[in-house]
């Protein structure tokens, strides 16, 4: 039984190219997307608005989820007010009917905000796959610079078009200052 031989050799996560400006990163991402690479990600110390489009990523589902969270929050707030005021603890306030919807609106409104905000925060975490204690990208030597002044584009080995030699030449060709392998 000698099936454990392969495991001693580290697997490859992908190739990472280092860029010196946001502009260069966006251009590189566009070129890679154009070339047909799909499994890739870009890393930058500052948010870059165009990057999302350059990488060819699908639109995020978060806004739709937040809307849904808001609607559910609002409906539950309104339902809660109805239940409390009409059946759980009916109180005569200023001779107004038990069902006085204008008085329910502030709570409905606040619950809408609460539902939307909680969905937004936790939805963001879940869709981003956070928290994630281990990510192979941190194995790259110079990756710490990504939180300072360097920009990185990583083409992952999982991509169908990935080929160590070809992809390295490609990254160098689109202006990467340095290309490094990232171990898994």
């Amino acid at each position, binding site marked *: 039984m000698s099936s454990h031989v392969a495991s001693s050799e580290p697997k490859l996560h992908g190739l990472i190219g280092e860029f010196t400006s946001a502009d260069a990163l966006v251009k590189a991402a566009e070129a890679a997307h154009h070339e047909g690479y799909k499994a890739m990600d870009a890393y930058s110390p500052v948010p870059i*608005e165009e990057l999302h489009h350059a990488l060819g990523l699908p639109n995020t589902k978060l*806004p739709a989820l937040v*809307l849904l969270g808001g609607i559910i929050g609002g409906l539950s707030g309104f339902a809660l007010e109805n239940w409390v005021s009409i059946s759980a603890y009916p109180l005569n306030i*200023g001779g*107004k009917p038990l069902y006085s919807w*204008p*008085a329910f*609106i*502030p709570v409905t409104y606040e619950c809408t905000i609460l539902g939307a905000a909680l969905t937004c925060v936790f939805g963001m975490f879940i869709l981003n796959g956070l928290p994630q204690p281990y990510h192979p990208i941190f194995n790259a030597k110079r990756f710490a610079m990504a939180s300072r002044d360097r920009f990185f584009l990583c083409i992952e080995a999982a991509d169908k078009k990935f080929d160590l030699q070809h992809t390295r030449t490609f990254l160098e060709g689109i202006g990467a200052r340095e290309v490094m392998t990232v171990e898994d």
Partner: protein
Amino acid sequence: MRLTDTAEQHIPELAQKQRTFLLAGGAGAVLSAVGYFSDPHQFFQSYLMGYMLVLGLSLGSLGLAMIHQLSGGEWGIVIRRSAGASARVLPVLTILFLPIVFGMHHLYEWTHEEALHDPILIKKAAYLNETFFLVRAAFYFLVWNALAFFLSKWSLEQDRTGDPQLTRKMQQLSAAGVLIGGMCTTFASFDWMMSLAPHWFSTIYGLLVIIGQLLASVAFQIVMLVWLSRRKPMSAVLQPIQLHDLGNLMLAFTIVWAYFSFSQYLIIWAGNLPEEIDWYMHRLFTSWKWIGLALVVFHFACPFFLLLQRRIKRNPDLIVKLAMAVRAVRIIDMFWLIAPDLHHDGLHVSWMDLVIPISLFAIWLGVYFQQLRGRALLPVHDPQFEERLASLIAHAHLGDEPKAAH
């Protein structure tokens, strides 16, 4: 062509726009005069409504310009010259206030003899009397005109000299201006609109009027920005992100408008006091309620859900249509604030409610285009402009020497 050239050098058709709108306004004024002789009471009511709408465009634009001086942001740089031109219509609006002075007795019950026998109005007489009303109006116009004048003057001076110190001066004036100008608008709305129902009072009313003005102005500035961006030099500057920000402002103002409107209703509904509910009684228990319902649907619900969508905010064609619709529903809101107090029994629309506001808007637009013509369309020496937009223009190879002025 250079960025420092005036709008007219870039877009020669502005002069023709000015003439067309002033002619239309003149024709409307003649038609309105017919209305004055046939029914002066209705004339002054429609005039007040039309006047508050165009005044709101100037004051709201002045407000946006001052807020931008304090907050910064690309959205404000691209609309700043158009907002400045809107604010510089104020001297003309000062003159156009005169018909309201002459129509006081038609509009305001507290100017009548009977007010002397009204126990509530006697107590309010120290504030609600004709002399003090006119003194206050003079003061409001003085403040608004001074703010518009100095901000415009310094901005023009900066175009010439490039002195960055002027930005500091404009920021300081804006900080004071947002406060003092805002107070003036609050009291002006109490005097000119709220006192139509002199027994009634609402402390949030002024803010409600101000937010309406800001909403109308941001909608107008979006329409103009997109129109200008179909032409040089603005075509090189307009980015989806700026429209997105302006759309978000429109969304925020729409929400705040709904929030203030509902707060006012909720507090009066909960208190249920005779002197407070009167205002809502003849609005909600007569056919006026349809106007109220239209506001809930078209002034809040529709724009709210449409403006939530990023796709709409970033698309010039769509956001312009929405902004025009918002401008239109502002008329309904102003109608709701003014008309029911003069027609307690139920919904009453006169032809003058359309003709007079449209004529005043045409005159306003004529003066606006005249003010827009004489200056560069971008504040090229504003430090923020150099920081954020100058590179876009350089990329676009707009002219022979885009940064020649440096």
